[in-house]
């Protein structure tokens, strides 16, 4: 069937083409369409019956002339050719070269959809990754194999934060980063893509980066393929070549919007805000490809960037993502406006795997308690700040004033840091104690009495 061209397109609309009378076409099969101008487009079979086959065309159906469109069914799913040579390369959203170099030739071609990992084969991520960013390392630590998105909003410095993580991430005791990076952009602007490209170049890792780019002005449907192609490359690097892979993807919101667009065309029943009910499962197919596998050396650590529509964390895209990922780093407009970089809003931020990757055997024995205390003290301080706004700071008690001073110092000095400042976890924890010491020991009940005696600058507990 691979070699036969059919010219039976009976309708075309919004990226979907119906082919009449092609019996026995495999579901999910890849398709090649040649239009009247000789341009080749690619697509996928999304419904197949003997009398009608529905094809989704990545490049869209604009200017398709039904009578002059020739269609071949390639009889296999969308596959990505893989070899060591993908490192340093730039591909489009469908995995074709866009760096002007020849295509990757390899007998090893894999279905971009992957196969679900058997939960019994996973190895639980426990290795602490030091990003050098206090708000992350100290309070929302990242571990190798984790999926930890950055929830952000328009105009916030998520790209700079992601780039800083890529530059600085390392395991404790490790000198330089031994990661390779898979970078996928979908719906991103050219400026964003260039920013990352230059940042990789500057840190001299370009030959350890694979890029998959589908930019804002490029075919929307191709976005559904882009993260899958990128993750197929990541899985190959991690589980065949033993690399520790850091996957940075931006922007999940553009991905979800593309999915909604296609769902509407297909006539799927919408759930919330017009997004299809399967958005959750579809996002999970992507996010869950992060992780570690027993008896394999490599790992996939994932940092998706997601811009929250109208900064609303309850919007279906961040909401469903948060239900799947292993926490989230939330960037906030308020801190950003105050000039704090990175503007990590710590309270709604969370790392679910932190509890298993920090403490005595991993970072420092006081780390879990310190983190918990920072959260508690800062949450308390924000209440006081709210009160001060109502009754006026003059009316506050001494204790409350101390708490306010702590909040300010915490935001400026602990959360805030330089874009090139790479703090060790010890520096981060010592800084935390310095700030906690602004509060009386009796107010610090989440750390132990021994820890207070050892680290609190105010002396005895």
């Amino acid at each position, binding site marked *: 069937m691979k070699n036969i061209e059919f010219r039976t397109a009976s309708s075309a609309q919004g990226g979907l083409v119906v082919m009449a009378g092609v019996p026995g076409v495999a579901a999910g099969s890849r398709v090649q369409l040649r239009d009247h101008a000789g341009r080749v487009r690619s697509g996928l079979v999304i*419904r197949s019956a003997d009398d009608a086959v529905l094809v989704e065309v990545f490049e869209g159906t604009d200017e398709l002339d039904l009578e002059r469109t020739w269609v071949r069914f390639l009889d296999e799913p969308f596959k990505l050719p893989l070899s060591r040579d993908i490192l340093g390369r730039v591909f489009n959203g469908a995995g074709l070269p866009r760096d002007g170099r020849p295509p990757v030739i390899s007998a090893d071609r894999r279905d971009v959809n992957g196969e679900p990992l058997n939960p019994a084969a996973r190895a639980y991520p426990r290795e602490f990754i030091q990003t050098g960013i206090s708000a992350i390392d100290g309070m929302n630590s990242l571990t190798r194999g984790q999926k930890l998105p950055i929830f952000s909003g328009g105009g916030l410095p998520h790209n700079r934060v992601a780039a800083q993580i890529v530059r600085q991430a390392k395991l404790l005791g490790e000198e330089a980063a031994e990661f390779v990076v898979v970078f996928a952009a979908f719906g991103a602007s050219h400026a964003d893509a260039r920013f990352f490209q230059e940042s990789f170049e500057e840190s001299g890792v370009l030959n350890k980066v694979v890029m998959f780019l589908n930019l804002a002005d490029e075919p929307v449907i191709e976005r559904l393929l882009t993260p899958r192609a990128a993750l197929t490359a990541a899985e190959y690097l991690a589980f065949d070549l033993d690399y520790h892979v850091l996957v940075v993807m931006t922007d999940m919101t553009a991905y979800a919007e593309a999915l909604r667009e296609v769902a509407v065309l297909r006539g799927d029943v919408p759930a919330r805000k017009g997004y299809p009910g399967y958005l*959750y499962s579809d996002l999970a197919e992507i996010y869950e490809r992060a992780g570690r596998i027993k008896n394999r050396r490599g790992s996939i650590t994932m940092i998706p960037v997601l811009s929250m529509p109208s900064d609303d964390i309850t919007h279906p895209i961040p909401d469903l993502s948060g239900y799947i990922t292993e926490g989230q780093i939330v960037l906030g407009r308020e801190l950003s406006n105050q000039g704090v970089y990175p503007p990590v809003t710590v309270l709604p931020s969370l790392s679910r795997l932190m509890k298993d990757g920090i403490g005595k055997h991993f970072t420092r024995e006081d780390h879990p308690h310190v983190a918990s205390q920072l959260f*508690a003290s800062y949450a308390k301080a924000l209440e006081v700040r709210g009160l001060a706004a109502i009754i006026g700071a003059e009316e506050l008690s001494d204790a409350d004033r101390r708490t306010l001073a702590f909040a300010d110092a915490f935001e400026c000095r602990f959360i805030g840091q330089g874009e090139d400042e790479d703090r060790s976890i010890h520096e981060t924890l010592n800084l935390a104690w310095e700030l906690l010491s602004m509060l009386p020991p009796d107010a610090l009940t989440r750390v132990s009495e021994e820890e207070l005696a050892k680290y609190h600058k105010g002396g005895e507990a």
Partner: protein
Amino acid sequence: MGKILEINGPLVKLELPQTVIGEQIRVGRQGLVGEVIGRDGDTALAQLYEDTAGLRPGETAEGLGWPLSVELGPGLLGAIFDGVQRPLLAMRARSGDRIARGVAVPALPRDKAWHFVPDPARQAGGSLAGGDVLGTVQETESIRHRILTPPLIQGELLELAPEGDYTLDEAIGRVKLADGHIEKLQLFHRWPVRTPRPFRQRDHAVAPLITGQRILDTFYPLLKGGKAAIPGPFGAGKTMLQQQIARWCNAEIVIYVGCGERGNELTDVLESMPELKDPHSGRPLMERTLLVANTSNMPVVAREASIYVGITLAEYFRDQGYDVVMVADSTSRWAEALREVAGRLGQMPVEEGYPAYLGSRLAAFYERAGRVETLAGDHGSVTLIGAVSPPGGDFSEPVTSHTKEIIQTFWALSKELADARHYPAVDWLESFSGYVSSAAKWWAQHVDPNWESARAEALDLLAASEELQRIVNLVGVEALSSEQRWTLEAAGLIKEGLLQQSAIDEVDSFASPEKQFALLAALLEIYRQGMKLVKLGAPARRLIQMPLLAQARRWKSQHSSDDIAALKAKIAAIPAAFEPLLQEYAAPSTPREASS
């Protein structure tokens, strides 16, 4: 033999006359399995439990003649199954780290022989009825598996094997049915998952399920055989709370169903359970635990089934006379899977895309919980605890609101508490339990006669502090009287010293009922002592500075449940801590002072 007409996502249209809805089917060259969900003349609509990529119209389809069923027998404990009871460890051995399609592996191992001890009460020639115990297999050190007669069998026992080692395929007996038909008995039998297993009658739930979590046991108790829900936005702690319950609760069997959630969470359970000891039996927890996993990246259709697979396994152990707990994380993913099926069948959506029967399906599912008298005359229970994941954390959405009407215990998780890292983030105002008076009898009998009043006193204190906090937020703490400030402080003490409980602190993670009550009594004692002083005119400011308050907040993690004596010693010393202030403020003319 039928054939495939159309493939559309997980849905296939088949030419398959005479099939019935619910029948299992096998299609295509790879032998993918699924179930029929609709019929129209000779065509049937089916959904597959596996990805349909590569299937073609024209490929074969066959009905298997039975509905989705599970295998029930030795080999269940310690296992991890997928949503249609395929054994994931065996699958990994067979097809590697990724779940390959079309792999058929029996749920229970066929090569393993189990040591069967027949029940002396069963004699050849005697009558045999469904649910009767044929004998036992010591499956793990702590669990004796009772081999049950399949529920629908009724007849004469012709033969029962002597004590010895048998595999699942071997016969351990024969029974002659009423119609003269002779049937082979084995160590296992099958049961369709969507049909509740029969029992003699429902029983009243009598004992609380002790989870070792203070806010649950002491404030919002659940009974063995009860139904509970844990709603909460993402990150609020639903999974951790369910894992804590799975680890520490005093059930005999725990079924953990991961329904549409993270793979790593199951890995976590799989890796940690064998290392942890059951505080009640001292044995590794994995010996009493069984996992059903359809993670969020596994096919959605099997997700809908996984909940039924889990509850059927739970009922099976109940029928052996065990107290079983099933935790389901998350029932919302199941409801969403239901919504997808409904959408594909073109059924009219009523709210947020959910079909009209969402409420009745949920209710019917939760009805499978309960304490019962089994067919064999024993008592067993299934306690059902479902997590609910409301979109945007909005409890008024359909799954949460329907569930709330069905269950008796509601552990509402709050984003605000979780954000401040107050764990477990169970909201003490939103949560409720309909089992308090039954639980009170148990606590009075086994722990302390004052449990109910102490609990009520603490809850009153928390409610009062909520009011006061509102005032403080408007006008500042200075506006409060000393009495009110002390109330606020004491409520803070209860929150931090009692309600907050760290799952990752080795000592704090589990609290026995005795420890729970001791802490509650201690903190209330501090409250009362302080109140006495405030009433004597001591300013709250002085009390709040007492080092005792910071110390008491740490007691929970300083004394384990085996170390109640030390805790009690600290409690006995509470009045002494207040003594200096009492000396200062008690008027010299009061009779008590005069006599001292």
